[in-house]
């Protein structure tokens, strides 16, 4: 690879070493391979205006495997479209392509199309518009990439003097289901207060599931009480997929006591 000077190669080597160290200490993961492309991009973009963004994303990708795909695409796609030189744009494309190849990102076709289209548009200013246009079309006509985690999120709980309190995270399109597991022992009466909104219709937007029972509720405020025994899990699920101009969200609090 022909580089301006040794500095670029040394920046890349620093990144590769960090990648090697991560894999050595955390165990090898094929998902981390796109980071190699990102560190190449980092070296090539040193000195350009993209560099701070790529550096920030490199650090985020390095320390947080959960955020790595986000960091890869947020640095790779702008590099693809707004990179000053062809080398940067190719490295950005490889970063995007390798992420989409190795990590199962849903609704990724528009991302790939934007990354590829950047090579067919010579005008720099027109290329700048690729991302906003791609994002808008994707949001309006397709969908946006969904959450990577396949396992549902489990709500935290504390039991004190026979009374249980659940700490339930916000349920939204990036975290579409939360489980409230019953304590390991005893029979428990559990109350749940739900507040759902951010949609523009009254069609049911959440499902509350316990064993074989299921309750569908529209947006608004609801309170439920259920009896739970060991092995039960109460699931709060968002029934809405992504839709533009909708901020579907469920806030819930729950608590109960041992019967």
């Amino acid at each position, binding site marked *: 690879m022909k580089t301006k000077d*040794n500095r670029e190669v040394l*920046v890349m080597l620093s990144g590769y070493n960090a990648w090697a160290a991560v894999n050595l200490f955390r165990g090898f993961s094929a998902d981390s391979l796109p980071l190699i492309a990102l560190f190449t991009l980092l070296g090539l973009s040193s000195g350009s205006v993209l560099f*701070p963004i790529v*550096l920030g994303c490199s650090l985020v990708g390095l320390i947080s495997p959960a955020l790595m795909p986000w960091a890869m695409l947020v640095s790779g796609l702008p590099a693809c479209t707004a990179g000053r030189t062809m080398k940067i744009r190719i490295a950005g494309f490889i970063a995007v392509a390798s992420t989409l190849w190795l990590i199962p990102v849903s609704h990724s076709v528009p991302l790939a199309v934007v990354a590829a289209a950047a090579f067919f548009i010579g005008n720099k200013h027109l290329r700048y518009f690729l991302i906003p246009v791609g994002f808008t079309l994707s949001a309006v006509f397709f969908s946006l990439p969904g959450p990577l985690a396949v396992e549902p999120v489990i709500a935290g709980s504390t039991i*004190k003097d026979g009374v*249980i309190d659940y700490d339930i995270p916000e349920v939204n399109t990036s975290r579409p289901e939360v489980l409230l597991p019953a304590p390991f022992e005893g029979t428990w009466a559990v109350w749940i207060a739900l507040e759902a909104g951010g949609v523009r219709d009254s069609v049911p937007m959440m499902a509350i599931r316990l064993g074989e029972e299921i309750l569908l509720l529209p947006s608004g405020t609801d309170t439920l009480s259920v009896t739970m025994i060991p092995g039960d899990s109460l699931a709060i699920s968002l029934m809405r997929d992504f839709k533009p101009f909708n901020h579907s969200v469920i806030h819930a609090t729950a608590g109960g006591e041992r019967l």
Partner: protein
Amino acid sequence: MRKFIRSHPHSFVMAGFGVWIFVAWRLAGMPDPGFAGRIIPAAWLVAAILNGKINRGRWFFPVVLSFTVGAWLWMLYPSGWIITAAVPVAGLVTWSISISENGRFGVIRAILPVLLLSLFTAEINGDEVRFAEQASDLSGISSDTFSETHIRSGDISGTEGHHTPLFPLLIAPGLLAGDSGLRIVPVIFALLAILLMAKLTGPRIAVVTALLYPGFGVFGLAMTGWLAVGLFTAGVLLPEGKKWTAARFLIALILVALKMRYIGLAAGIFIAEYACIPGRKWKWITPLVWLSAGTLILAVDRYLLNGLIFWSRYGNIEAVRLIWVNIFHRPFTTIVHGGWSLFDPEAGLLFRAPWILAAISGLFIFSRKQSDRFKRLFIPSVFYWVFLVIWSGPSWHGLPAPVGRMFVPMLPLFGCGLVAVWQKRETRLLVILSIAISALVIASPICRYNYADGTDSILTVLGVASGFSMVRSHPVQLLAPLLLSVSMLLVLGKAEKYRAIFFAIIFAGAFLLTLNAGGYEAEDMSPGIVQGASLYPYISDPVERYFWFNSRERMLELCEPGQSILLPGVEPGDTLLLQMSSGGGVLSVGDDLINVETPLVEMPSLFRSIGRSERILPDWPENRLMEEFTVLLDSNDIENGNVRILHHNGSPVYFDRIDVLEEIVLP
């Protein structure tokens, strides 16, 4: 109109970006459209109005594109939207720094949009409430919420807080506007301080100190830090001469009246003043004689006259004794506290403010160029830091108030250091990393606070649990960041030659930060693993743990039916290493029962030597010794790859951490 648009193209493009943030936020369906989705675009519109004809800079389009891609991908990770929201905020901070040198009111103009964002997002914290209550009580200006005084930890009485009355009195006029006026006077103080800083360091660096940590942590909040910065900077800017010396001494006294913590700063101002007097050979003998005489008089009073003259009326022997103990009885512990004050991820100076490293390297240049000014800044700042660590001991961080506030009075020194190295590319890089941190704190206001329990709020947003922390790590581990920092300083000194090694150090630092030894720390166990059990103490405020003789980590308490720990991914033949304590509890691990009884901690000899008479501490959970219990798992203990740990009977059992040793199968 057309003429106006033509003459202000950059402002219109910036306003367009503000509108785009608003639209893209809704198009992507990102959370919090009503608050964050409005104030961030609004801040960009304010910036566009204030921008005038100034060029927006080359960084603008990459920021626009990164935000757009971030919005496109926000659902990939639950905190993805926070980092996406931080991108335009980072752009705004960059804009502030870049335009600060333009025009007559460049500094104020540059700061306003980010200041407004920061003020809107920073919730009123406990210290501010206390100041407001005192202000209302002392001035008689009644406000809705703050007119009633509530006692808090460390207060002298229900009506007398642990804060001195000067600052509450100064901010009291703001309460005329009601509760929401609490920050009016502090904002004015902060703006005046920043204007003074601009005289000292130039506008750009002044803006950097305000919008990046540690200054950002309390910028505009009703806390004393920025008033102290203003006073200290004013003292440094005063000309030479006897009457100005008197003014500097007055400033030193006001600093002490403002907050007792600034006594180190005040002492440093006195000493720096003396240090700047043209040299006589034995000039330090005179103050040493006075200091010795004063100490002798106090000692005679205390030990021969039983405190008749001074101690019984004015002095607090315990405060002096604390300093004595920290220096002479546990010097190593005090040095370790000093080390963590630099490197701890939650509260240390360098994690949230990497630009300080560049500033420190610049201090060497600054000291050569302006020796006297350097002395006036360096001596008080170092005295302040040393006094803070020696006097406060393990509570040097002052958490859970906004992180970094303890270092704010050192900003004029760091600002002057930064001026000397601003042009270097490495400096810009460290500044950019610091910008990212400020932006993240604005986008996720909870990141402003930490609880000294090893779970840093920024790393939590990033989905990372650090194994490196002042409450978890062995002091020897401090050597790693120390080595990295010294290497970085050496590289910064010879930046042209060693530029690329700089990146190796940055990556090594990031890696070190997240290097987790594996296993399960009590504070990090996810809800998927822990059910029903809570952390002890139940309140996360570190004040609850200040006087623990053992570790200051929070512990997981298993004590009643329904609570359990479900460890995944175990196999027959694996060994569980359980770090736990109890006064006699029985634990069930799979099918095995373990009797957990660990001894009470003896009072450390250090504390016995300084007057604590008891040998055995009270039977509280924090006073039980943590011991390691091993359990070899067989197939009966495991169900679907999980092993369940339950409290069976007896006293509660407290966990510090759990490790799983996999069975080694020899070929």
